């Protein structure tokens, strides 16, 4: 039983490292790769939970995470990037150093919070919850420090990865919710893709800085 937890912690830890990788990548292509790596690790973590806890329904979640977020979405994003011709560097609001320090602080915060709050009720699963919260917050951070529409999409989906990890860690959470999360990511991608193209169409850039000038009140 112990080894099962060790492995799931290891996988959750790798996901967290991937979240950090997302923060410091310089090129859009590398960001997408890091996201794909994180999603595949998520699929492994969910599959491991399915096997070790005898919850076969989780294999479906794992398959969705692998197929959709590990393969299809990264490929679609790469195609988008190629068609839009934005291989260049990622625009950032703050420097890499600052982002990493803030990221570390967020991890400390989520560890302290979750461990303190859940010490009476939950067993070993609470570490995984803390890691999941850290991944969610880092995704949040990424959406804040990046200006490019595509990298904001990735930040959002990395946040969703953290949510699915948390849902998996919560033992016995009904499958219906996880499937709908996956479904929502699909819709989200659709919506994002549509907007990314439209933003490009209207502004000749997907730097969302351009959008800020379009505030209705300043017309």
């Amino acid at each position, binding site marked *: 039983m112990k080894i099962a937890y060790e492995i799931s912690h290891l996988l959750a830890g790798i996901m967290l490292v991937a979240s950090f990788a997302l923060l410091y990548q310089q090129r859009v292509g590398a960001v997408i790769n890091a996201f794909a790596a994180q999603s595949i690790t998520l699929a492994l973590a969910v599959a491991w939970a399915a096997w070790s806890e005898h919850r076969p329904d989780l294999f479906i979640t794992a398959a969705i995470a692998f197929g959709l977020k590990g393969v299809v979405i990264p490929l679609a994003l790469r195609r988008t990037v190629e068609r839009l011709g934005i291989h260049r560097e990622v625009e950032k609001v703050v420097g890499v150093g600052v982002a990493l320090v803030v990221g570390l602080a967020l991890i400390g915060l989520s560890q302290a*919070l*979750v461990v*303190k*709050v*859940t010490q*009476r*009720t*939950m067993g070993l699963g609470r570490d995984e*919850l803390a890691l999941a*919260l850290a991944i*969610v917050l880092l995704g*949040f951070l990424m*959406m804040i420090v990046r200006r490019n*529409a595509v990298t*904001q999409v990735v930040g*959002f989906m990395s*946040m*969703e990865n953290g*949510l699915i990890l*948390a*849902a998996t860690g*919560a*033992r*016995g*959470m*009904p499958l*219906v*919710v996880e499937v*709908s*999360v996956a479904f*929502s990511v699909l*819709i*989200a991608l659709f*919506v*994002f893709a*549509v*907007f990314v193209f*439209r*933003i490009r169409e*209207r*502004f000749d850039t997907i730097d*969302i800085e351009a*959008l*800020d000038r*379009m*505030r*209705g*009140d300043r*017309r």
Partner: protein
Amino acid sequence: MIAAYQAVVLVPYGAAVMLAALPGYRVGAAVNVIASAATFAAGLWLLVSPQLVGDYAIVDEFNVVFVAINTLVGFTTALFSASYIGHEIETGRLSPAFLRFYHAMFQAMMGSMNLALIANNIGLMWVGLELATLITVVMVGLYRTPQAIEAAWKYFILASVGISLAFFGTILIYLAGQPILGEGVPSMTWSLLQAAAAQMDPAILDLAFIFLLIGYGTKVGLAPLHAWLPDAHAEGPTPISAVLSGLLLNVALYALLRFKMLLAGQPAALDPGPIMIVMGLVSLVFAAFMLYQRRDIKRFFAYSSIEHMGLMVFAFGMGGPLANFAGLLHMAMHSLTKSSIFFAVGHVAQAKGTQRFAEIRGLSVTHPRLAVAFALAVLAIAGLPPFGVFASEFLILTTTFARQPWLALLPAFGLLVGFGALLLRLQDTIFGEPVGPAHRVDASSVPMVLHLMLVLTAGLYLPPMLVGWFRRAAELLG
């Protein structure tokens, strides 16, 4: 044979599929109205059908009130939309293909909101609210102007962050319920969670509520998290603004109140009341001041929605049967009045061909009847008697005054500031020197007049049956 609670979800979803397949926008608009009427009938049927606590659905006095308002405003908005949207084709802002998409999405949105309202499962409720949000995001971007894309993008980013945090809160609630109710669906079921609340770990409930408050609070449009709201209202089609203000904000508030009820069941957990009072007051006063700087008419009334949502959250934060009653009444009155205002704004925008205050002047000269209706609607939302909004605002202020005299000063101050802004704008738009073009208005004024009459009636006389519903719902809220 399906039950009423199934019908309010299945009819709109069925209609959405049908509308997606139907070519021709006139047929689509007609089907949209018929489906909304059927949903409204189902909503009324739900009011008289017995209470129910199922595995996935719940029907109690609290949510039937919400469903009734939802289906009523959905129906009148569909009526308005049918007469309004043809104009958008004529002016070339929308193509028939987009209109087909619009009608299908309208029904899907209504179905998702009703799903969120009757779900007896915190996960299902989240799914309903998220679907409704994503659909409104697409609707806001429907015109594809740079401004509309900016508004939709901002809405999407803020709403999805909010909804992700709410999901994390949902997981935490599940974790709090799991040791008592066991693994699986029972630990996500409202009715069971509610019954087991006293045994839950207060620390997890506290943390969960913070996430849920930020998550769903974003969708209610509470002050630090409101940034999406004015843009989304201003740039989307007017019927969608009406539905956003009148309904979607309510559904998010409903979710928040359900979780507040859950926390009330565990005395050791934090009391959501003071947090909600503070957030409500901040939204109210902030939005009231922001009203003065708005130059766009839809943006202006979007800030007014933030103001009123703040007042409701304040009332529910005060708690107790009377304040809850007043909050629910205010919610109903605000939904009806604000949607009628957006209908009127739709008329005004058609008449003047703009949404800018500077170019909307002298309506009493060019469109006298519209001017009267618009003025009445604005006076109603400003809280003047004899309209229903006056009754609910008065009730909120007096019950606060009876319990915390000093605290009552703040909402009263905020409402007065907002009142001033409303009158100032009203005077310019109604009187003033007419400028710019004056087109004929094609849209139907029936929904607008109907809403105003309902609000007026509620202000003069509340039927005992209605009072009974609100009172029982208020008692459930605790």
